[in-house]
């Protein structure tokens, strides 16, 4: 009886809490004061930033624009709309145990268990009424087909405008012009919908903030060459990466990366790291990791293995030229090594392995991610030719049903033994 009551009430309470402005006010304050005082300033900035956007989106303070991770959010900050990040919500749902129900919801609506769990989870959260209503949805055709398809489906559901940025495969001057044209047209279209003229100065400001974030991210990344590596690999692919996707162009983004640099500088000076006695340094390939409770990173760290860098944190783009804002954003998008021929990504993997002096590579094979899994054996061969061992670790970023603690441990254990034997 009591269990039944709890089961009925729990979703209602969660639902109510997640939609309430006070929840976000509390979380923002926690980020601003609680975390800073506890010496976790970067996490605090991220929490404040995320909670602020959610509060604004639920209250409909300005046009709510949903976008995917590879969309240039600088544009949204320049437009003063409220950005919303369904992929972040999926990762957070996984972290807080809301993923299973959300995924079950999406699958009951005919979303196949073989498509990316981040999208299944986001669709399910939306079906449960846990995402704020969008006015506009934007997506990019890279890195995967899923973003365009899912975001378009969701826009139909809401009857709102949907814009897909068509990102060409090859990075050529023509491709940059073509993409810059789309970015400009999209910006003007959104401004028109807002009913106010677009101010180019705001975009110039956003690019300056984005450049500032970039500078500090480069400096922070350089510190990760230190032994021991000052940033835990799990943090780098969670809130740091989230800020890298969605923060650039906002004041919080610039502040975040400056603070990250300062925190890491302090740790390096004191010789602190996630793993004190670093026995093995590892490179993580993929933009994601599992976000539900799991022991991958803890286990690695307990064995002296530090994930000292990941391809996701690499700064591949040049500083942007505020005099040519749309072209600069197009150049940033097209210079992503995961866009275009696989040789670019494989070449980057090799370069990172050498720069960060890693002993091995973990290529996370996220179930349902075609863009990544299609290339993993090519990358493994490229690495192995240089004598760098690669573990292709099957798993899932948001669907915990595809995670087996024992199997994952066995594979990690065998990989570490192999690294040990190679010494």
């Amino acid at each position, binding site marked *: 009886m009591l269990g039944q009551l709890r089961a009925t009430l729990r979703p209602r309470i969660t639902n109510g809490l997640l939609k309430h402005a006070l929840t976000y006010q509390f979380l923002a304050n926690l980020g601003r004061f609680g975390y800073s005082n506890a010496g976790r300033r970067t996490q605090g900035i991220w929490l404040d930033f995320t909670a602020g956007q959610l509060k604004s989106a639920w209250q409909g303070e300005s046009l709510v624009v949903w976008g995917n991770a590879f969309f240039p959010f600088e544009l949204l900050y320049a437009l003063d709309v409220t950005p919303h990040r369904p992929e972040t919500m999926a990762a957070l749902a996984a972290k807080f145990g809301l993923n299973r129900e959300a995924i079950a919801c999406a699958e009951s*609506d005919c979303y*196949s268990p073989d498509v990316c769990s981040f999208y299944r989870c986001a669709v399910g959260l939306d079906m449960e009424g846990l995402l704020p209503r969008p006015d506009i949805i934007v997506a990019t055709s890279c890195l*995967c*087909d899923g973003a365009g*398809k899912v975001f378009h*489906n969701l826009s139909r559901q809401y009857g709102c405008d949907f814009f*897909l940025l068509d990102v060409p495969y090859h990075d050529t001057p023509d491709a940059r012009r073509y993409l810059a044209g789309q970015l400009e047209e999209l910006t003007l279209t959104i401004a028109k919908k807002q009913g106010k003229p677009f101010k180019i100065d705001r975009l110039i400001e956003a690019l300056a903030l984005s450049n500032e974030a970039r500078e500090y991210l480069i400096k922070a990344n350089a510190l990760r060459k230190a032994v021991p590596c000052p940033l835990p690999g799990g943090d780098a692919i969670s809130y740091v990466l989230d800020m890298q996707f969605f923060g650039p162009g906002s004041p919080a983004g610039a502040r975040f990366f400056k603070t990250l640099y300062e925190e890491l500088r302090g740790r390096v000076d004191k010789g602190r790291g996630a793993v004190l006695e670093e026995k093995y340094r590892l490179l993580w390939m993929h933009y994601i990791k599992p976000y539900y409770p799991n022991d991958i990173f803890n286990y690695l760290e307990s064995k002296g293995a530090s994930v000292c860098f990941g391809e996701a944190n690499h700064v591949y783009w040049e500083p942007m030229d505020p005099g040519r804002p749309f072209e600069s954003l197009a150049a940033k998008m097209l210079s992503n090594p995961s866009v275009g021929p696989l040789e670019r990504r494989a070449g980057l993997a090799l370069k990172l392995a050498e720069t960060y002096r890693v002993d091995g590579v973990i290529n996370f094979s996220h179930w349902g991610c075609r863009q990544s899994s299609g290339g993993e054996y090519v990358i493994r061969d490229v690495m192995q030719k240089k004598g760098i061992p690669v573990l292709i670790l099957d798993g899932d970023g948001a669907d915990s049903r595809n995670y087996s603690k024992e199997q994952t441990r066995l594979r990690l254990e065998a990989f570490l033994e192999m690294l040990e034997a190679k010494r």
Partner: protein
Amino acid sequence: MKDNQRRFDHVFRLIEEFRAEGVIFYTLKFCDPFLYDLPQLKEQLAGRGVPALVLEGDYTPGTLGRVRTRIEAFIEMLRQYARAA
């Protein structure tokens, strides 16, 4: 790729042209472009009262037995529809 409604409208035209009473979606496992169309297409077909069956295959004979059973059940359902009409 972008506007899948074009594909859906094409499916509806084919249904009319060939007087189809049901639709079988056969998708190859892991084929994102088709898999992501299913929720919308199924919903629109349901709105028009057209029964649909989703089959996922992987070009191996392993699934044939199950596919056969599901097709038989689908045909039986279509028969019942026809009788009731």
